[in-house]
């Protein structure tokens, strides 16, 4: 067991540090022009060094590096420390690019990958529909081929950042006679056209991270399809080829715990700082136990990754485990807030400066219920753990959907 990153990686870290010191923030020549131009130049430079776009072939604008989770981790750490921008955040880099690289036509890769990597275009995802939840086979949005164009009608929901996106990758029912999954295609849609109506979807916290998107005779060219007709469901499941980052989530949890401790120092219970209350102290340690287990489990999974070994059942439970931890933190926060456990939720600034304000905690108390729901309910995850992780038989009800 060796928790250092090793000499080679530390040398690499030195290179990254030196690069960042020289290049970010931009100075001299590099600091000329608009913010956007500076950002673009910096990204190009970082790509040329092999620090960004690592999983993307050179011909589509990436740096085409051999997968190396540790290097990926070091790059993340150092870029974060320097406040330097990495690849654009969001669903485009996370989901669309790997899918295109795996299943896209040559012209699609050329047209979209580089521009996405450089932050020139932004994407949103059109999977969920009202009433479809985790069950994508029941999608109702229709696409009809009229001449050289798909004409799309229907509604998507839980589309984050749809109002800022240039394009959507979208699951659309194009083969009405085919059953369930088999009738769905994976289409790309220009969001800047008439017939698209984006409405904010307000959450119970009062915030609006998500949108509903309505399609009324929306058009997209015939060849803006990834994979064949009716293969959309398959295409959407293309495994993410990204360098995994199992540690990131535990880091967030640790930051939350720190904020909770800060809140416990600030708030009073029974006339003294909550942090001095024996039960609160023990509950903080209890939550910390779960977080630490989650965190070190991330170390272990990264190691397995490095060795190209399977993480086993552990790899299937990260999400539900962090959901559980979120519930625990949320409830403990309510206990610490005491009489202010009913203040209106504040801005969704959980990782920012006001992380330990009361209204951020009531926000979190609600958001943790939302997290449990997003991306498949906990029960679907339990089934996956039971079946793929523990090898239990499929349950009969679930089998029906075959």
């Amino acid at each position: 067991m060796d928790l250092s990153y090793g000499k080679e990686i530390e040398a690499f870290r030195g290179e990254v540090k030196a690069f960042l010191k020289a290049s970010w923030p931009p100075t001299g020549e590099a600091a000329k022009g608009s913010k956007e131009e500076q950002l673009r130049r910096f990204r190009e430079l970082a790509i040329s060094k092999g620090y960004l776009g690592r999983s993307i072939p050179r011909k589509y604008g990436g740096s085409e590096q051999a997968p190396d989770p540790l290097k990926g981790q070091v790059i993340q750490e150092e870029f974060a420390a320097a406040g330097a921008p990495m690849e654009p955040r969001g669903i485009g880099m996370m989901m669309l690019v790997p899918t295109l690289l795996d299943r896209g036509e040559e012209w699609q890769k050329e047209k979209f990958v580089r521009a996405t990597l450089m932050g020139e275009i932004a994407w949103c995802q059109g999977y969920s529909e009202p009433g479809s939840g985790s069950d994508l086979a029941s999608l109702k949005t229709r696409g009809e081929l009229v001449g050289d164009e798909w004409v799309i009608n229907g509604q998507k929901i839980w589309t984050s950042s749809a109002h800022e996106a240039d394009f959507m990758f979208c699951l659309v029912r194009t083969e009405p006679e085919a059953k369930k999954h088999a009738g769905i295609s994976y289409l790309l849609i220009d969001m800047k056209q008439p017939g698209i109506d984006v409405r904010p979807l307000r959450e119970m916290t009062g915030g609006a991270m998500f949108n509903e998107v309505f399609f009324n005779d929306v058009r997209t060219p015939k060849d803006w399809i990834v994979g064949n007709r009716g293969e959309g469901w398959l295409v959407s499941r293309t495994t993410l080829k990204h360098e995994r980052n199992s540690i990131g989530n535990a880091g967030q949890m640790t930051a939350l715990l720190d904020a909770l401790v800060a809140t416990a120092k600030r708030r009073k219970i029974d006339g003294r700082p909550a942090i001095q209350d024996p039960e609160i102290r023990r509950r903080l340690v209890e939550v910390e136990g779960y977080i630490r287990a989650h965190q070190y489990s991330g170390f272990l999974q990264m190691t397995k990754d490095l060795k190209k070994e399977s993480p086993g059942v552990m790899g299937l439970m990260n999400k539900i485990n962090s959901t559980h931890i979120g519930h625990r933190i949320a409830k403990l926060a309510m206990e610490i807030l005491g009489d202010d456990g009913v203040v209106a939720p504040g801005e969704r600034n959980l990782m920012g400066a006001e992380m330990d304000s009361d209204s951020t905690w009531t926000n979190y108390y609600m958001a943790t219920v939302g997290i449990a729901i997003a991306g498949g309910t906990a029960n679907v995850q339990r089934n996956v753990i039971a079946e793929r992780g523990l090898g239990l038989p499929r349950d009969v009800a679930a089998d029906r959907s075959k």
Partner: protein
Amino acid sequence: MDFDLSDEQRMLQQTVSQFLDNECPMAKLRQLFDDEIGFDPVLWKGLAELGVAGIHLPAEYGGSELEILDLAVVAETLGAHAAPVPFFSHALASLAISLAGSAEQKKRLLPALASGERIATIAFSEESDGWLPEQWTLAAGATLHGAKERVEAAEHADLFVVGLAGGKLGVVDRSAKGIEIQRVESADRTRRFGRIHFENSPVEILAGAGIEAARRVVDVGLVLLAADAFGGAEKLVATSVAYAKNREQFGVIIGSFQGLKHQLAEMAIEIEPSRALYWYAAHAQDHAPGEASRIASIAKSHLSERYSQVARDATEVHGGIGYTWEGDTQIWFKRAMFDRVMLGTPRLHKNRAADLAGW
């Protein structure tokens, strides 16, 4: 033995329930929920005309002179409907006057409260954990100087019943000088909060009874919150079950997935037995004075905790829609937050119940 509601109590619940179905359907509730002020005088007046404002007040002042259980079953019904009315605080404030007011004060103040023409509220909490009469510190003189926190309906009440040092109770009129009301945004938009500052505000003391009157007001309040919590929690179980019966996923009604069925069963197990708990706690207020305070604290801490948890569970059962502002679940979720905090957190009341047991 008859541990059940009387026909009259059932009818009272039914009347209130029907009135709310008609006069405060979901669309109306949402409108008030989203509204800046969130108070509809007409809705309140309609409820008051059913006698709801004076259930517990003496007949000579226009009340129905019924028991706390009658008040509580109405609170349950309002909880189930998430009714955006200041019933809770009005009931406690008017109770305080009827318990501790002089004959003259009762005669002067109660009739307009019993009819609901005027609205009264309670101003008890100061800083954190200041809900109990023993904890009040605002000095009782001819005028008040200081502040009260977490006052429900502060902006639309005509009268404030204020908790004072030594467990005394005082009445301040909304029109009195030196009153400043600050709106406080709270999660539950069916029952709004305000902070009241008093600056040389004239107060009349309710001198007809000692601290035990204030304790009884708090105890009754705990019962009403327990009842509200039961009503809301049972409603959430019911809507979750209904959702599970209707919604399909993977071509199957989700309510036929055993995993979800067992979760729904557990939600029901957590809630259903406590109907009898709040009934008993309400009954004890009139018939078992020796255990009235303790069972009130137990019922409030138990039910507000069950309600909070079932609200989380129900939100999950409802999937994405449960997490939206447009979904209905969130309204009850936030009422659970109010019920948990109002008159003191479960922690405070568990401590109190342990103290009262002599442990």
